């Protein structure tokens, strides 16, 4: 495929995407549901890519996402709730006089949320990044629980409103806000992965000892990866707070980390486009699969399995199938490219024939 053709294809794709968003934004009353799904997907795409940066590219299995999202979300909420209505939000415990008068526009608030998350990550990283694999996972998970407990504690009630949570967070002015920010964040991370830092991260993932022998400062790069990942996770959390308009500490339980992990695994550990694609796929299919939750009657006969909660069972069974049989996920460690798509379609008939001959056991590795 020629370079100009590829460029043209990408150009058409971007135009189509922007056009679609523009159309949805103009008719937002009609497409409220679709818009909300897309916004959620975009937010989860940021968080999934930042988790992938840490887990897939640097090989540090961290489960602390929920905590960093909480920091971002609380920071953004505290400083974007309009000053005028703050008293009604903090009706129970009163408000800290210092933060009572600070109100920042959303982009600045998001930046601040990300910076706070990064700062906390820097502090946590110093002790925690000395640990490896499962110990690192459980320690980061622990920190995320500690952060959550602190945010909900009565001692911080004047800032975080304790267990009441925060509400009346102003919503997005248009669908372009979350998508614009998501694009900027993901593009930054892609640039980072392609830089010399990114190469160092990959080297650490492949072999720590070899990486160190090549002169890569292990701790410095691990810490850097952890901080950057947390920064973008914090921004994602802030966006989620604006999306949900009301948050409390139970929003950021371990479950949300597992949801993001699911996206990353499904998309392929070590593939940015895979994570983005999976974020949209998972968020959208959660809605598509909603018909599993409704009672289904075929010709007067009520199918017994279909009732509330069945959707999540189907969903988790699908996840287990991916984990057990398609460990690479959708993309593996590959990235989206027009060449790949082109090759896929050219080889499709051949692959199909081969699979038939081999008896359908074409599992990789």
């Amino acid at each position, binding site marked *: 495929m020629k370079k100009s053709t590829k460029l043209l294809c990408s150009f058409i794709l971007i135009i189509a995407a922007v056009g679609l968003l523009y159309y949805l934004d103009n008719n937002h009353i009609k497409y409220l549901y679709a818009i909300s799904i897309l916004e959620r997907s975009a937010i989860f795409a940021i968080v999934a890519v930042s988790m992938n940066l840490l*887990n897939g590219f640097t090989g540090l*299995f961290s489960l602390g996402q929920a905590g960093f999202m909480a920091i971002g979300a609380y920071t953004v909420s505290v400083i974007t709730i309009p000053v005028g209505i703050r008293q009604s939000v903090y009706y129970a415990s009163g408000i800290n006089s210092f933060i009572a008068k600070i109100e920042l526009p959303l982009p600045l608030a998001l930046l601040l949320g990300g910076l706070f998350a990064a700062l906390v990550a820097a502090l946590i990283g110093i*002790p*925690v990044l*000395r*640990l*490896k*694999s*499962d*110990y690192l*996972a*459980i*320690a980061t*998970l*622990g*920190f995320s*629980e*500690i952060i959550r*407990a*602190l945010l*909900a*504690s*009565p*001692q911080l009630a004047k800032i975080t409103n304790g267990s009441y949570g925060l509400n009346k967070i102003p919503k997005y002015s248009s669908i372009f806000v979350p998508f614009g920010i998501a694009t900027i964040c993901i593009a930054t991370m892609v640039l980072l992965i392609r830089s010399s830092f990114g190469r160092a991260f990959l080297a650490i993932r492949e072999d720590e000892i070899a990486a160190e022998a090549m002169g890569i400062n292990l701790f410095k790069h691990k810490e850097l990866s952890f901080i950057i990942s947390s920064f973008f996770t914090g921004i994602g959390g802030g966006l989620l707070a604006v999306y949900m308009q009301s948050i409390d500490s139970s929003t950021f339980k*371990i479950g949300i980390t*597992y949801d993001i*992990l*699911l996206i990353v*695994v499904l998309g392929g*550990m070590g593939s940015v486009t895979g994570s983005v694609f999976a974020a949209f796929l998972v968020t959208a299919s959660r809605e598509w699969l909603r018909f599993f939750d409704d009672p289904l009657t075929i010709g007067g006969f009520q199918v017994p399995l279909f*009732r*509330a*909660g*069945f959707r*999540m*069972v189907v*969903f*988790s*069974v699908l*996840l*287990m199938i991916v*984990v*057990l049989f398609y*460990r690479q996920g959708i993309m593996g460690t590959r990235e989206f490219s027009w060449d790949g798509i082109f090759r896929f379609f050219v080889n499709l008939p051949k692959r199909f024939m081969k699979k038939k001959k081999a008896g359908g056991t074409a599992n990789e590795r």
Partner: protein
Amino acid sequence: MPPISIFMSILEAFCFMSLTTFLQHCLTGISLGGAYALIAIGYTMVYGILRLINFAHGEIFMMAGYFMIFSMATVPWYLAIPIVILGTIALGVTIERVAYKPIRTAPRMSIMISAIGVSYLLQNLSTYLFTALPRGYPEIPVLKSSFKIGPLSSSFVTFFTPVITILLVIALMQLINHTKIGMAMRAVSKDYETAQLMGIKINNVISFTFVIGSFLAAVGSILYFTDRMSVTPFSGTLPGLKCFVAAVLGGIGSVPGAVIGGFILAIGETFLVAFGYSTFSDAFTFVLLIVMLLVRPTGLFGEKATDKV
């Protein structure tokens, strides 16, 4: 500084506490510790052999709670308990066969993700089957009857839990140290591949480990939920994580270590709740974990090993 002020007020509360209250809290803590210890053993044994945090163990424990509710609905308690134990063992072994065995040779991250996937599946499955609303835990008359030693009074289960924990641990230690299967387990946990070359049937040993782990989780679940009165699909997550922390605290792979770890965690937590810091009682667990990992990563009773941390 809040942490210091918290510490000071805890110290103050300690000084002004009467002996009876102190002992009463100790008793509650020890009882909770017994249940934690039983669950922590399951983690420590599986980790010792497979090098895997069995994230689904907390969910196995929760499912045992539901098994008890449904078996007690039809049969009396002395029949229900064996049924629950058998059901839990079947569940544990099935999970091992279906979710862990096929990817045993895969990178550790994949197995861990598989474990998280199983715990996700069990949570969603039980939400679907039993709804997310808390279900009342049936009362076992013998365990619920009130019981007194001196000034301390509590339900019988509170006194009974530490006793049965100790008995089970002693039995388990005998099994590990003095039987053939126990020797095989020790061999597998020392060196997986060499054990296989020596003719040990790895699959049987691993399944047996899950049998023991699930058995203890079932017993722990009965003792734990009898005191808590209700079960929800999410009531296994946090105890599960805490018990893993207990296992790390005691030194992962060591059974007595897991028991001690369970008791330390539970007593600490009970006192924090008693002093009115229940928001921090979960955080306390993880603070303890992190301090332990930094100061002495092999835990209190762990063997010296370089590849662990």
